[in-house]
């Protein structure tokens, strides 16, 4: 504080008008308005101020003082209060993370996308034997672990889905090829060893290069449109 006092002095030497030499009533007003649990009207403020202070003028000056700041003095319903500057409303949000478990349906779908990518929704449904709810796909998109990678060159040009790098990091996989194959799945007992001979597990690849039967996504292919009812706008980190 001592250093500040010095600063004020030096400031006042710089220019003819010293912007820091504030009248005491501004200090009083700002303290009252700051501490008050509700907006205060001019009459209430006047009662608390020393006699002879023109509260109206002081308020106007205080308002001007704070106008360029992150906190503004505003008048609401004829009462005065400090409020965060309107342009900083984005700052007034707190972001928190909450841990959520994926639903069984979502994990199943994710597993199929991981092994069978690039894969369309219809193909996923064929493998699972049940229709996929849109919500499940939305949730998976929200995880950031899957992404639409192109469009299959078939009638209807359905989207093809694949996994992302975030997927690898979530499951501590160095590469997609680290996903266990048929023999390993059998070895761990996850797959029945008496499966028919024709049974196979694809060797998955998340190569970004599109396959021959894939078209690239089009510029207009925003996820919003792809997945119809929009998920909340996300800070786009997607691929």
């Amino acid at each position: 504080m001592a250093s500040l006092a010095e600063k004020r002095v030096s400031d006042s030497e710089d220019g003819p008008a010293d912007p820091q030499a504030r009248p005491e009533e501004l200090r009083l007003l700002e303290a009252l308005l700051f501490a008050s649990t509700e907006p205060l009207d001019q009459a209430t403020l006047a009662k608390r101020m020393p006699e002879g202070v023109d509260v109206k003028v002081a308020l106007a000056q205080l308002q001007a003082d704070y106008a360029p700041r992150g906190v503004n003095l505003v008048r609401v319903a004829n009462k005065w209060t400090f409020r965060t500057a309107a342009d900083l409303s984005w700052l007034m949000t707190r972001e928190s993370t909450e841990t959520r478990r994926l639903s069984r349906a979502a994990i199943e779908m994710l597993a199929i996308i991981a092994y069978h990518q690039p894969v369309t929704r219809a193909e996923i449904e064929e493998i699972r034997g049940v229709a996929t709810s849109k919500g499940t796909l939305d949730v998976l998109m929200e995880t950031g672990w899957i992404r639409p990678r192109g469009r299959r060159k078939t009638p209807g040009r359905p989207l093809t889905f694949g996994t992302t790098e975030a997927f690898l990091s979530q499951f501590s996989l160095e590469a997609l090829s680290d996903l266990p194959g048929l023999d390993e799945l059998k070895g761990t007992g996850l797959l029945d060893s008496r499966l028919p001979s024709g049974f196979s597990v694809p060797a998955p690849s998340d190569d970004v290069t599109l396959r021959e039967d894939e078209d690239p996504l089009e510029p207009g292919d925003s996820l919003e449109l792809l997945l119809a009812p929009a998920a909340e706008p996300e800070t786009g980190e997607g691929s």
Partner: protein
Amino acid sequence: MSAEILSFETGRPAELADGEPSLVVDVEGYEGPLDLLLALARQQKVDLAKISILALADQYLEFIEAARKIRLELAADYLVMAAWLAFLKSRLLLPEPATPDGPSAEEMATALANRLRRLEAIREASNRLMNRPQLQRDIFPRGNPEIIAEIRHPKFTATLFDLLTAYAAQRQQRVLATVHLAKRTVWSLAEARASLERLVGMAEEWSCLDEYLMNYVVDPSQKATVFASSFAAALELVREGAMELNQKQAFAPLYFRKRPPSVTGATSAPDLSVE
């Protein structure tokens, strides 16, 4: 722990003009013997480090004696302290024993002086602490804080084990489902008979059994079982007199019709042969 004031009106030890401590016997005002000792010590008007413990003990004992004279009911700890101080005083006055067991009188006196200094120091500190500007008394936080909206970002959890289990379970389930279907493709006699009965009901004219049967054959692999069961069922229906069968020659298509009600017995002898 404290007694009532009997005859002395002022609550605090005061000092006489000549610096002699006045003795105001009022235990009420003290928080225990140490507090009283400290108050007495302060009357010596010297640095606490330099107080005379001997003089202090005298003062304390004098105070207690006065209190007892006026029948002031003293809490036990005041008396305990008095006894201890009397002991300390005698030790201080007597020459040190040759082999002292325990602390010497000097050490005991120093310890007491230190306790007094410590109590005084903490009192001083607590004064300074309470004199600091206090929240909600002298200084105030924001009275009307603004709401900070909370945006929740979900962080999803799933393990590789979850993933693999899900994948294996799904693939396996599909495979097992196919196995089930294969079992059901055996065309049972009962099924064949029920189907034939429905067919015969509609077949007034000779119809090709094979063509009808083909409708039931979903998969070429099922052809054998469908034909075998149907043939056996057909024979049974013929035996029961519900239908007629006709075949031109071996391996030729089988024709069947509902047995006409008027005719008894076969119009044309069916030439039956088993494929």
